[in-house]
């Protein structure tokens, strides 16, 4: 099944198996998805250097003003109409210590919509990147700093426990 995802290694140290326990993976996975949605709901790409999402076209803005969907506004551009694509953002811990984040294990039409936005593959829909899935792309600095903070906290915890007599 097609997916729009990114997988990054939590191989912070070789204490890996201890470092990325279920709880830490959950803190990271849930936190990253939450922060991605926070960015997106403010019109900001969760992918570093992609900035704010491109404005909606005039014709789409007219539809929104005409009541396309309750609560939908012309800005910020948030890639949200029904909310099902955002709701499909998910994470998964793998046995090798990596964490997968993206849109997977869901309806094909949602994946296709995500790919359209993320890659800009449709002639009438500009790219609005929200998952760093290409070589060289990375999460926003805000999200990366969150990841580092969780790592540091977990590493301190492991060191403390291993120093206990």
């Amino acid at each position, binding site marked *: 099944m097609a997916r729009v995802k990114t997988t990054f290694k939590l191989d912070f140290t070789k204490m890996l198996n201890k470092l990325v326990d279920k709880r830490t993976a959950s803190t990271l996975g849930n936190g990253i998805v939450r922060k991605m949605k926070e960015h997106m709901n403010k019109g900001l790409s969760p992918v570093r*250097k992609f900035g704010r999402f491109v404005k909606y076209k005039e014709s789409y803005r007219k539809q929104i003003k005409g009541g396309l969907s309750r609560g939908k506004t012309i800005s*910020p551009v948030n890639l949200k109409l029904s909310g099902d694509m955002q709701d499909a953002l998910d994470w998964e811990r793998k046995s090798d210590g990596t964490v997968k984040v993206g849109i997977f294990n869901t309806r094909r039409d949602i994946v296709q919509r995500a790919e359209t936005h993320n890659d800009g593959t449709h002639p009438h829909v500009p790219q609005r990147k929200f998952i760093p899935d290409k070589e060289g792309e990375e999460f926003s*600095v805000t999200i990366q700093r969150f990841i580092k903070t969780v790592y540091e906290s977990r590493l301190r915890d492991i060191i403390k426990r291993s120093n206990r007599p």
Partner: protein
Amino acid sequence: MSKTIQSKATGRSIFSVVDIFEEKKVSGEAKRKALNEAKDFLFEQTLEAVGSISSPVSGGKYKKTLNKEYRAKKVSEGGRGVPNLELEGDMLNAFQAKIQGSNIKLGILGNSKEAKKADGHNNFSGKSKIPTRQFLPQKGQSYKSPIEKELARIVDDAVADSVDITKSDLRDIFSKTALLAFLGEKLPDLTPSERKGSILRNKKVSEFFEDLGLLKWLE
């Protein structure tokens, strides 16, 4: 703590220039890394704050409600009925952050129309007649404490990342005292606590430490 060393509104621009190094001596690769990361971080945090209807600036004013008439007008034109500083989004789309020498410049640059709107909210000119909703720091101001805390860590991590620490440097370290002294020599501009944090957040270096059994002394 970062420090805003300049803030200005001209006909075409409104901007703040921020020094993130708080008198720490940072140069070369470390400086370049820190500036790049901090620039993008401040860009994101400014837009995050505005989207949350608040100022990113410590002590910054931000009126959290719209007047009734304007609120109704904004909603009828397709906008949100909150002061998120966007209707069409053009002003925030024009917001940018760039590196200027050893500092970071944030604002609306070379765009009279959007700079005028931004000055309306920030009132650098002193001529604004609309409620203040500050998203750029004025000269002498700093950012809110969570932002400042992370900026300091960005600088510390860039410094630690740029220091050349190899396994062979660490092979003759056999005590906590010796380790802390070694780190003090390698990272003289950081406090002991800052050194520890930046090492723990550094993948390459913490792996060396772990391989040589030294991580335990970073508690």
